[in-house]
């Protein structure tokens, strides 16, 4: 059971939810940038949430399915087509052996996740199948996909087979068959062209001068072209400390907003290093990480202050919705 890459797209790689347990050895987490889109794509095809998907960036790949496959595409507006015909995102789709999947450029957001029932049969490196580019490890041969790559699948789960069975019953002549049901749209993050992002005050917030403390929550920042999976460099008002302060390196997290000497904040993301020595002005609320993952260079963002308590409640609310979705699918396709 294989997937053949005909054209790799701009930057396509295998990611799961990340590599955990080894950060104390300097091993970064990597993993999907938009974890919600990745998880929902997996749930819709009956995979475990942590199954590896293809993370597609800006311009998607062209690929061929060597056998019937159950797939789902979630994330930014990716305009996928099977044999030239548009298919819907955010739902399971059964595609026929030999069909070719192609993407238009992503028009809203910048990343999409392709989940295939069974996930990929590739080596587990340090407990994860995520690609660690800098160390050339994990994922598919430790790198982005190239034309000619052939990626083997694992066996689909019992649940996947039941979903496939359900769709096969009503199959027509088309090379694909979409499910005719939708997920609750409130689970989907509110992707927007210029998003407002909720932020908790950072650990060194009080070291910043008054003007910076106000600017971070009042002024817009734009995402510079010097942005990638490691971090987004922001342009806007320069932020400064009240006085020079030599910081000792400490752990940093997904969504940490740190400010180096030049005053331009950097949002740390999936491929961030494990520790950093720059002052932290903010920490993006977990619930809004997908919004930043879908923001491309040129996007204007505004930060809105929330408390840690508010951020946790929002996080738990979404987790409960995802848990309900999983249970809903499991009971519906018993």
């Amino acid at each position: 059971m294989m997937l053949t890459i005909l054209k790799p797209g701009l930057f396509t790689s295998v990611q799961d939810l990340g590599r955990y347990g080894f950060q104390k050895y300097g091993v970064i987490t990597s993993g999907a940038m938009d974890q919600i889109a990745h998880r929902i794509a997996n749930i819709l095809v009956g995979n475990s949430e942590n199954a590896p998907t293809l993370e597609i960036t800006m311009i998607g790949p062209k690929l061929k399915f060597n056998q019937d496959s159950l797939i789902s595409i979630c994330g930014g507006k990716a305009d996928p087509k099977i044999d030239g015909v548009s298919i819907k995102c955010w739902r399971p789709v059964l595609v026929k052996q030999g069909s070719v999947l192609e993407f238009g450029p992503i028009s809203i957001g910048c990343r999409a996740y392709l989940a295939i029932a069974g996930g990929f049969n590739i080596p587990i490196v340090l407990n994860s199948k995520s690609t660690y580019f800098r160390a050339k490890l994990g994922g598919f041969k430790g790198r982005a996909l190239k034309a000619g790559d052939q990626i083997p699948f694992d066996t689909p789960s019992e649940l996947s087979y039941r979903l496939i069975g359900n769709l096969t019953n009503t199959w027509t002549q088309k090379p694909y068959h979409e499910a005719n049901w939708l997920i609750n749209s409130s689970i989907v993050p509110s992707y927007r062209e210029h998003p407002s992002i909720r932020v908790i005050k950072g650990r060194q917030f009080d070291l910043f001068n008054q003007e910076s403390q106000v600017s971070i929550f009042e002024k817009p920042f734009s995402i510079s072209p010097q942005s990638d999976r490691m971090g987004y460099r922001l342009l806007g008002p320069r932020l400064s400390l009240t006085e020079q302060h030599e910081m000792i390196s400490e752990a940093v997290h997904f969504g940490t907003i740190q400010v180096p000497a030049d005053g331009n904040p950097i949002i740390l993301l999936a491929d961030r290093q494990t520790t950093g020595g720059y002052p932290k002005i903010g920490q993006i609320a977990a619930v809004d990480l997908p919004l930043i993952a879908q923001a491309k260079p040129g996007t204007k963002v505004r930060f809105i202050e929330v408390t840690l308590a508010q951020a946790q409640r929002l996080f738990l609310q979404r987790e409960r919705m995802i848990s309900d979705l999983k249970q809903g699918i499991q009971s519906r396709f018993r």
Partner: protein
Amino acid sequence: MEYHLQVVSENAIIVEFGKEITETTLQDIQSVTSSIENHSFPWIVEFVPAFTTITIYFDPFKIWQLAPDSKQLPSQYALEQLELFLSTIQTIKISEPRKITIPVCYGGELGPDLEFVAKHNNISTDKVINIHANGEYIVYMVGFAPGFPYLGGLSEKIFTPRKKTPRLLIPEGSVGIAGGQTGVYPIDSPGGWQIIGQTPLKLFRPDQQIPSLLKMGDRIHFMPISLKDFSNWEAD
């Protein structure tokens, strides 16, 4: 043991052991990390020690599932549990820190900046090698790159600023100096360090469950070896 806990995100708590990098702080951190490892809390994902802190990553949804009707936030539960746990830990003086010898072939093609370091400090290249190899170093932290040790103990006599223009590629195993720091690049990487030699040892072992050769608290010695020995070094 002096420490302070702070919740820093929905899934992370930082424990700070003071504002200065000292051997006492190092021992406190090591005592706590080994205690956490031995205890295995089901809701802790991992911890990251660094110079004067330990950051503990936890799973807030797992905590919520323990008591879904509780009004207490997961971070409050985690904070309470960790405060309680830490209060039971006493600092153990690590009497036998691990001693690791790192063989280094200094200079030549493997150490293209050795001459610069010598000139900058007004001493001979032999003296640089002598001083570097006679130093006793402590691993204060592993980070920046997989298996990369932050070493304390470099002699002031060979402090050398970073290169103005970083190299695009520094080969794995390169031993370098940057300001008052010395270290070894565990993977190919761009960088601005002054490279004085190379080790045949692998500091990063992705095929092993403990993928880093070096750990916080280790004592390091560098040992000069010849180019011939470098080329013939058997991987262990």
